[in-house]
């Protein structure tokens, strides 16, 4: 299994909560970037079989059809897509058009992930999104005409968005036929607009406990309606789990193309440069994982999703996790369970998983 991630760092405007690398840039910068992407893909490609592709950002839907085609074609020409199972593109409601959808469909993209974030016009405005509730609903309906597999992103923790409010949003979204929801807890970083707004009391997100309350209510609702919480932040109807994301949790290989993109190849975690000029020079951070780091990854990634961590894989690398000082306590407290030589974290403890996972890391 190998995946490809392509990072498109452009947005029409930066969202107020975003601490991520994105540029709201001129057309020629985008064009240049697409050229850089092309040459990166060409130089690193090895023609291997690819199972999943993910165009993320930023806002990939901001690209013109010809730009999307250009990148897609470079991938097609330099890799073997005969066994491709899933190809996702992220899109914002306001930049979804018929033309965009048609282009995607034509290229073979079969999954679209829409950044809805909220269905409150007030909150959408406050967090700096450019769409409204109605526009989001309309664009989902439109996308639905071209794609069966639609995912939406929701943020949990916005002002006034309690569990009841979120369940209401979920009801609307499910009725539109979406197959997958990613729910992210609002994270406030210091150098963001939202941080300033909170300081100035222009925005009042839910406090941590209320956020988790809301999240749990939403999670219960989605599961009651047939979705599976297959990872901390991800819910899907059976069969619609994101294969690309599961690849991350099961430590499959992936290429990451584009500025600040991450790759995992040949036991190395590779991070592309974070500025355009460094990226153009092809500078990268390469980290060869030690056995201990591999162990840490297996525990950390396996426990944050329903894939579990394989006890034998850990043992082979010299870590008998059952001897960890917390292990038997967690089993007794029903925090962990073992099945088929794998350890799983009880879904009810996902929201406090940092404590549990860090305790279970090898010394």
């Amino acid at each position: 299994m190998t995946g490809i991630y392509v990072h498109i760092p452009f947005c029409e405007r930066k969202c107020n909560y975003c601490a991520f690398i994105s540029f709201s840039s001129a057309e020629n910068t985008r064009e240049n970037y697409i050229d850089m992407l092309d040459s990166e893909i060409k130089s690193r490609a090895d023609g291997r079989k690819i199972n999943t592709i993910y165009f993320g950002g930023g806002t990939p839907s901001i690209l013109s059809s010809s730009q999307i085609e250009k990148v897609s074609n470079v991938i097609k020409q330099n890799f073997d897509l005969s066994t491709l199972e899933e190809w996702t593109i992220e899109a914002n409601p306001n930049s979804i058009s018929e033309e965009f959808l048609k282009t995607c469909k034509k290229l073979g993209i079969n999954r679209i992930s829409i950044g809805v974030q909220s269905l409150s016009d007030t909150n959408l405005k406050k967090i700096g999104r450019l769409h409204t509730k109605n526009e989001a609903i309309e664009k989902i309906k439109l996308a639905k005409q071209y794609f069966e597999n639609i995912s939406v992103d929701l943020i949990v923790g916005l002002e006034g968005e309690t569990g009841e409010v979120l369940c209401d949003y979920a009801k609307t979204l499910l009725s539109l036929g979406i197959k997958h929801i990613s729910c992210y807890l609002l994270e406030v970083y210091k150098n963001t607009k939202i941080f300033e707004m909170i300081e100035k009391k222009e925005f009042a997100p839910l406090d941590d406990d209320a956020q988790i309350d809301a999240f749990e209510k939403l999670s219960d609702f989605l599961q009651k309606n047939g979705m599976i919480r297959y990872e901390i932040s991800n819910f899907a109807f059976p069969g619609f789990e994101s294969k690309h994301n599961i690849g991350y949790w099961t430590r499959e290989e992936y290429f990451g193309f584009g500025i600040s993109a991450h790759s995992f190849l040949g036991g190395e975690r590779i991070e592309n440069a974070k500025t355009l000029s460094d990226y153009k020079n092809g500078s990268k951070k390469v980290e060869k994982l030690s056995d201990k780091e591999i162990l840490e990854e297996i525990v950390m990634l396996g426990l944050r999703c329903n894939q579990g961590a394989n006890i034998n894989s850990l043992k082979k690398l010299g870590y008998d996790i059952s001897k960890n000082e917390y292990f038997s306590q967690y089993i007794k407290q029903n925090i962990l369970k073992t099945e088929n030589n794998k350890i799983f974290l009880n879904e009810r403890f996902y929201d406090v998983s940092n404590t549990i996972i860090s305790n279970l890391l090898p010394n």
Partner: protein
Amino acid sequence: MKDLKKIRNFCIIAHIDHGKSTLADRLIEMTGTVSKRDMQEQILDSMELEREKGITIKLAPTRLVYEYENKEYILNLIDTPGHVDFTYEVSRSLVACEGALLLVDASQGVEAQTLANTYLALDNNLETVPVINKIDLPSARVEEVKEEIEEVIGLEAQSCPCISAKEGTNIDQVLKAIIEKIPAPTGDESAPLKCLIFDSHYDNFKGAICLVRVFDGTVKAGDQILMMQTQKIFEVTEVGIFVPNTKQVESLSAGDVGYIAASIKTISDVKVGDTITDATNPIKTPLPGYKEVQPVVFCGIFPVDGAKYGELKDALEKLKLNDASLHFSPENSSALGYGFRCGFLGLLHLEIITERLEREFDLDIITTAPSVSYNVYKTNGECLEISNPSNLPPQVEISKIEEPIVKVNIFTPPEYVGTIMELCQDKRGIYKDLQYIDKRRVELKYTLPLGEIIYDFFDSLKSRTRGYASFDYELSGFEQAELVKVDILLNGEKCDALSMIVHKDKAYNRGRDLAERLKKIIPRQLFEVPIQACIGSKIIARETISAMRKDVLAKCYGGDVTRKRKLLEKQKAGKKRMRKFGSVEIPSEAFMSILKLDEDDQ
């Protein structure tokens, strides 16, 4: 033949901050003992902590050479600590001297420690020479302070040197007074060797080094010496003096202050206060030595990492060599594992030892709240000395408990008398006396339970009097009191390291305060954790730490696994300062929180 008449052995005694180390610096400079290039402030305070806190903890001897009236004199200065906790160190240095300079701040006047140190000097038959310092200050009141010295202490002060150690004014008068007023040592260098170990420290290359005052005889490399108390014999490898760094010399003889190295590998073979004599021709009777000092404040010290128990033990043994007043014995706590119950001279001493363990030995330690030692009489007639609250027998087996009581002298400007009396009352003090020394100074006498003083008495006194009051205390005995043990249950399990012995009337408040404080300090856990304070089986307070809700890395941006891994590694590393107690994880600072109980009330 050496002329004893040209030797003076003296020390400087003073209240803290009256300028002792600065005067020592000036004397060293004036006599050219250290070149200008090597001179630094507080030159005798070699410990990092001493310079930082501006205090002297250890004795530091140095030899000054001074020409006076065409004769060359050797002046051996032994610097001494000024804090009440280190009275014992002061008294050790006094035995090695014939005289003392009593340094008094010209604006502060006589303070609690001035008096306490003078009494020590008089007890040791030292010639005490008053010196008034800081005459350069605008607030200096030289004449009044002279009168204070005469009235309060009873020393003649009209002709005493009035100096500014800071500016170097009249330092020659101090040197003159040392030579003229302090008697020369007596002794016979051809008699059998008799010297007193007044301090010791450990050198990784030379072994244990004895700091000695030679009273009779001569000692040189190659001599066989006998430690009279431990009955151990060693061959001297080196003798020397302090200038103030060590300098090897041919021999030390009667009247000298210096050091002896003898490849002594076992730290406990050197006992401060012991007498060294010639192994081949020993004297019959040793010098009186020192009375064994009794620790009054106790606490548990545990390694944060249980595996470092051995390192902690080594470190305590090394500190003990320099500091005979440090006591320790192994202790096992259900919450903290293996460690040591340590005894100290006071809170500052405790603080200094714990800081030295962390800085000089690079150890991460957990200290439990300080306690005093109680006499506990059981109904079966047995009497126990309990310094660890968790060892207190059940209430029903106790017929009575006695707690240590101290006599306290407080010097203060009169306007603070009211607030000080209130503080003493609150601390279960009993008023004894109040005297006006002059218009500006009042001396207050109280007796107080030591257990109350070790909580926050120092800090409260300082803050209530804006630092103007000084105080000194001495142990006066034991008195019966209605004391109970308050235990803390975490998740229903008794956490021994958090138990405390308190007066019955204060138990409810202390228990409630501690439970509240622990609730603030202990982070939320995966499950709800009840905190209960109880006396015996009776619950007197309850708090609940609600379960942790949010501790999650929600998003994995574009497969950035490394960032996540590093965050979790960091979280795991942070856990090293936590103690696991049952399924509850407690940060190390929680164990000191009992001490800080009263701070928030202010």
